[in-house]
């Protein structure tokens, strides 16, 4: 009797489904218990240390300056406003970084595949050097070793209307005058016209097989119409040129050294990774495809554009997405050289002043989560668009 009992228990325990149930129940219990334990500790600690909770602090005056702000901000503004300023700084540097890194990556990736031995070697050296040195070190290098050793404003390095000194890069700042609306309208109009042209050309090619240089034509259309609009409205742009006074440079558009250092470091570093992705993508396209295209009589540029690149892009896009995500996340390293982005402002200054670690770190994680999610959603959409349509 007892023998039978123990064997039925054994059977019960040896059943894979039952085991899975027991294991998962245990896991769930552990997760819930640990979560509850940490949460109760947290509440006790917060009460002990008299740290307030909630997000009311966002409406209180911040009282600290944020050096780089693209929207109006003073010390009298709230923490909430400071958060928005920092968020904008993070997004701006991420998007600019992504654009620049892609450009550098494509150029370097193609250079590594160049027929020219010297160019290929130089590109290899670039990639292998930058990939293997920590990003933080590179940021420090640009900030402390390059930009900080530039001359003082009095002895600025001058290229035409551009000034380069310790305080940053000064360039002419375009300011729109009355009538600039006409130019914008012309520009938008020309873009709509070009899209229509491209759609028409594609349709006609599918129908009749006749080819029309739609991209060149639309490029020309945009330039001509925008230029005409400029002429008609009488060039409504004025440039605020940087002026060199005795000890300083005033006016113009200033890119502070923190911004330049973060942007340069981020884009050259990520560019090296993208170069490898581009190279691998192009190499992954079977050589037979190129030969087939040649035997069909396509010239080299068309072979690249119509045969190799579309197939390479399918291989390139997924890893490229993760590099973009890395770049956005790595922009947080700007905190180390005082570029006022999210981590520096929220997890640094705000956290120190309010002491509300949970809310501030949570807020930061939420923003990065959303940023990562939106980039990967966009890239997934693009990937789907480029992917092979199979039966």
């Amino acid at each position, binding site marked *: 009797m007892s023998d039978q009992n123990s064997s039925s228990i054994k059977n019960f325990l040896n059943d894979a489904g039952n085991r899975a149930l027991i294991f998962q129940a245990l896991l769930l219990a552990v997760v819930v218990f640990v979560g509850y334990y*940490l949460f109760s500790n947290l509440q006790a600690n917060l009460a002990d240390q008299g740290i307030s909770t909630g997000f009311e602090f966002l409406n209180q005056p911040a009282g600290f300056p944020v050096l780089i702000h693209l929207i109006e901000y003073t010390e009298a503004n709230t923490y909430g406003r400071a958060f928005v300023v920092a968020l904008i700084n993070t997004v701006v540097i991420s998007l600019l970084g992504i654009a620049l890194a892609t450009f550098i990556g494509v150029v370097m990736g193609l250079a590594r595949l160049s027929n020219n031995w010297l160019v290929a070697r130089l590109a290899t050296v670039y990639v292998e050097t930058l990939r293997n040195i920590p990003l933080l070190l590179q940021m420090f290098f640009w900030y402390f070793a390059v930009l900080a050793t530039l001359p003082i404003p009095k002895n600025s390095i001058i290229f035409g209307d551009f000034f380069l000194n310790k305080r940053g890069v000064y360039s002419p700042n375009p300011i729109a005058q009355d009538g600039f609306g006409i130019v914008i309208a012309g520009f938008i109009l020309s873009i709509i016209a070009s899209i229509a042209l491209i759609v028409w050309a594609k349709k006609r090619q599918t129908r009749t097989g006749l080819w029309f240089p739609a991209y060149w034509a639309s490029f020309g259309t945009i330039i001509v119409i925008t230029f005409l609009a400029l002429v008609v409205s009488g060039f409504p742009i004025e440039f605020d040129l940087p002026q060199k006074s005795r000890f300083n440079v005033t006016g113009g558009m200033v890119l502070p050294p923190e911004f330049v250092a973060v942007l340069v470091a981020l884009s050259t570093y990520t560019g090296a990774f993208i170069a490898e992705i581009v190279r691998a993508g192009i190499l992954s396209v079977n050589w037979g495809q190129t030969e087939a295209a040649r035997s069909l009589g396509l010239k080299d540029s068309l072979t690249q554009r119509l045969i190799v690149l579309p197939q390479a892009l399918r291989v390139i896009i997924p890893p490229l997405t993760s590099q973009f995500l890395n770049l956005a996340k790595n922009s947080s*390293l700007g905190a180390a050289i005082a570029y006022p982005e999210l981590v520096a402002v929220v997890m640094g200054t705000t956290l120190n002043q309010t002491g509300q670690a949970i809310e501030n770190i949570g807020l930061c994680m939420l923003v990065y989560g959303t940023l990562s999610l939106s980039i990967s959603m966009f890239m997934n959409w693009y990937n789907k668009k480029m992917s092979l349509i199979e039966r």
Partner: protein
Amino acid sequence: MAIEFKPSPSLPPPVNSVGAVAWVRQNLLSSPLNIFLTLFSFYILYLLVPPVIEWGLVGATFTGASKADCTGDGACWAFIGVYFEQFMYGLYPSEETWRINLALILLVLLLGTYAVKTVNKLYLSLVILVVYPVIAYFLFAGGVFGLEVVETSLWGGLFLTTLLGVVGIVASFPLGVLLALGRQSKMPIAKSVCIVFIETIRAVPLITILFMASVMIPLFLPEGMNFNKLLRVLIGITLFSAAYMAEVIRGGLQAIPKGQYEAADAMGLTYWQSMILVILPQALKLVIPGIVNTFIGLFKDTTLVYIVGMFDLLGRIQAATHDANWLGMTIEGYAFAGFIYWAACFGMSRYSMRIERKLETGHKRN
């Protein structure tokens, strides 16, 4: 009488398709664009190489005890010499640094034992993974056998960098395997726990995790219970790279044909047997490059601990360049750090290529 056929001797190959000249013509001067690119490359080399050699070697000062000794107009490597001990060991007391060296020699000896054919590799691995860390810990921290106690806040320099890197790598790998298996498992709760963990960590930058480790963890622990900052940061780094490791390994698991899983089941292997004996050996081999990339990333990411106030190699160099007696030595310091990191990471990537070739069993599709 047949006429004997006598072929005339073959002509020598045309001069313009062999030899150095032909190589230059084909690889550097084949078209106008190529000629331009070659000239452009030479111009870049001309801009970069002579000044760097002039600064780093010709005009450099190699020995000296203070900034006044740096009379050359190039780099002042004496700076590195003066601070060398700090860069290597941080603020570890200099009469105790032999303990770090001893631990390092011990590790090298143990790893070298792998080459001896008669040694049981399983036992050796156990010694390295279980016994050695205990010995190393007591050597570093002291407090037993009359060794002086050295606070972890004094640990720094390349020593700390290596410690963070090695512990992170060794601890994150098994954790990553478990997370990957969990994510691939058929159990809904286990699967969702793993997915939530992996995706949350991958969505945020390492800095936020490190801030959490240094600021938030104490809030979650009961009154009076607190542990060392170094340990907290180590846990943060390990969890972070385990999430990335899990995704890499998942790629390998997905690449194994279903037949392998089914064959293992048909043999009557249990889940763990089939994973350890059949699936993982194949899956891990496939993703060696990805695993090593994660390791390299982790090693480079250890520099971030400087932001939460720990002085690893980069942190010590940063501190030294702010020394009032040695101002203006930033490039020397960064060049030194850059060289060390570069050598370590480049070495790791080359080593992974070697392992890949060694484990290649010819099943790869070409």
